[in-house]
């Protein structure tokens, strides 16, 4: 009896597997695509090699003065020499360990919050959020408990940028949540007040708000009472940002099905307990990515304090490039600043995307 033997399968044609097939389907699938690929490749060739040459291959890395930068490329010596100023502004050099310690404590203190299964996370978070600001103020500003005072006029660089962003979000979040609740309230007077507040701050640019807080706030306050310039800027930033947070939170509140409100009311919960125990925990979870995005916007907006003369990262760099000893270093300075801002913003946006995926428990309808 003769048995039938199958012949082995033929390998797929060489045009449908391997690098060649990938090239064909992704870059040269038809005439138009080929043209696009060639154009794009030309664009890349125009941009990438010169930038690489300038930033890495021809760049000057060592030395300490302008004269050490002889090559064609970037002069990173400038950034290295002024690094301290870019990070700490005019914070006294001997005391900069205090800034480093503050950042270190923030990182170390916040790290447990990112552990998914930590017991008593809420208690820890509340404690951290209460204690850390006091500690940070003591370390940065000082003036009591054996630490020398460093007035805010000497703060600057990346440190000031981070301070404004952190205080801005910490102040704007609670205010924004209250405003969002007010906007969804059943009481017409409160709703009108909140809507007016939110729409006013959302309709004007941050620059005018900063102008206002720097020239008008002193007029609004009783005589003799005057605030530090940084505090005035912070008040402006918090008021401005709270309106944006309010709109984000409102989105979350609207996404909670009506049944949740009705169920909470049926359990006999009053307004505040209904919001605090049932609605807000769900709504805030929904809008965490939105809040992170608002924070990214706030982080970018901190650069505007240059307008009222605070020395944040951008202003430190602008000042340094105006130094006659380092003439013509504008490109290096701004590229460095852009890189720093980009790293922070890009990192946060990736984090918010990850959160969005992790928190997506299918409650959305």
């Amino acid at each position, binding site marked *: 009896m003769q048995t039938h033997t199958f012949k082995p399968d033929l390998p797929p044609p060489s045009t449908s597997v391997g690098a060649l097939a990938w090239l064909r389907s992704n870059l040269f699938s038809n005439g138009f695509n080929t043209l696009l690929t060639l154009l794009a490749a030309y664009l*890349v060739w125009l941009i990438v090699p010169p930038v690489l040459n300038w930033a890495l291959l021809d760049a000057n890395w060592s030395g300490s003065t302008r004269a050490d930068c002889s090559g064609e490329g970037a002069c990173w010596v400038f950034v290295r020499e002024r690094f301290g100023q870019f990070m700490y502004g005019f914070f006294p050099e001997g005391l900069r360990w205090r800034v480093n310690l503050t950042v270190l404590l923030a990182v170390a203190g916040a790290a447990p919050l990112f552990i998914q299964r930590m017991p008593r996370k809420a208690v820890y978070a509340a404690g951290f959020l209460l204690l850390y600001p006091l500690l940070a103020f003591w370390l940065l500003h000082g003036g009591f408990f054996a630490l020398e005072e460093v007035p805010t006029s000497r703060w600057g660089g990346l440190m000031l940028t981070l301070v404004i962003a952190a205080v801005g979000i910490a102040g704007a979040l609670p205010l924004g949540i209250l405003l969002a609740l007010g906007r969804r309230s059943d009481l017409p007077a*409160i709703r009108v007040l909140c809507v007016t507040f939110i729409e006013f701050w959302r309709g*004007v640019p941050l620059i005018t708000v900063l102008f206002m807080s720097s020239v008008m706030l002193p007029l609004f306050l009783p005589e003799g009472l005057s605030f530090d310039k940084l505090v005035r800027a912070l008040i402006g930033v918090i008021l401005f940002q709270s309106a944006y947070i309010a709109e984000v939170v409102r989105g979350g509140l609207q996404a909670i099905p009506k049944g949740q409100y009705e169920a909470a009311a049926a359990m006999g919960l009053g307004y505040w307990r209904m919001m605090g125990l049932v609605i807000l925990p769900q709504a805030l979870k929904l809008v965490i990515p939105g809040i992170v995005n608002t924070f990214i916007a706030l982080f970018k907006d901190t*650069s505007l304090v240059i*307008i009222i003369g605070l020395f944040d990262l951008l202003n430190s760099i602008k000042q340094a490039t105006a130094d006659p000893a380092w003439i013509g270093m504008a490109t290096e300075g701004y590229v460095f600043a852009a890189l720093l*801002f980009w790293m922070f*913003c890009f990192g946060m946006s990736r984090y918010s995307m990850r959160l969005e995926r992790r928190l997506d428990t299918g409650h959305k309808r």
Partner: protein
Amino acid sequence: MSVTSSRNHSALLTDPQVRAWVFQVVAVLAVVALGWYLFHNTQSNLAQRGILSGFGFLEQSAGFGIPQHLIDYTESDSYSRVFLIGLLNTLLVSVIGIVLATLLGFVIGVARLSPNWLVNKLATVYIEIFRNIPPLLQIFFWYFAVLLPLPGPKQSLSIGDTFFLSNRGLNMPAPAMAEGFWPFLITLGLALLAVLLMARWAHRRFEASGQAFPALLTGLGMLVLLPAFAVLIFGSPFHWTVPELKGFNFRGGLVLIPELIALTLALTVYTAAFIAENVRSGIQAVSHGQTEAARSLGLKPGVTLRKVIIPQALRVIIPPLTSQYLNLVKNSSLAAGIGYPDMVSLFAGTVLNQTGQAIEVIAITMSVYLSISISISLLMNWYNKRIALVER
């Protein structure tokens, strides 16, 4: 007796309606008290500093020069004229920025969805780089690192001896009215009218008989041919004055100051990255079934795109696009950072410093931005409503 009164008492406290009233009255009173407190402080502070409040200062002569004014201006003109110039400059930057950012954003948004791997990745890299860098930093980069280090007018970079790029800005030919201008304008108006009438007629015919009329081609043809005909008969509508180097600067022609170029470039590049993401998500929101249905009805790919995909994608794109436009207008106030004479740097900056009328100046500036914001939202809401899905 005492029992009933205490019951009444507690009922009054827990009655939701009474509590609602109490809350609202307290809130309104608190706001009014705060307002009165601030007003009172301001009054006494102003009196102490000897500042007269009121808008009388607007009629005083300004006495400073402005590098870019779209309407006539001399140093002796009043502050109200300065206000107008600042407003026009803000609008100029905003309009140019909105148009360019929309074009660039749509191109990049579509490129982001391209099946071509290289084009797709380039668009992604563009978006991720530019939306994560603060707009003010981008403005500074273009202004301080790119435009100001350019050579002076004498060594300027020229394109065909008509466009000159130097650290004083971009000099280019300017049109001036010539004999053929009025006939040109009149025929252009007539052509526009004819196109509008034609479009209405074509639409009606399509609704009635289902026959499509090549309205786009005909319209474009009319718009080009009619004015061209007028130009042939009456001569050119403009004569162009070309900038010439005289002494240390250019004479004649039009100049775009470097501040304007830097601001427009930065705002366009920054906002386009956001618009591109909106466009991408809008197009992705149209389900693939729509394309397949249109194709199975026998519509050609071009028609599918125009009549099926784009109308539905626009519905998703318009609301976020509106907020991007608003952001661009508000970001144009970053002009203050490089001294472009816009509303904020001219009015809230220079005029405030000269007159010291902080409250009036800031109030005017803020209300201008508020009204621009509200008008853009109204306009876009109207457009959004027009293209919204009509359901039963």
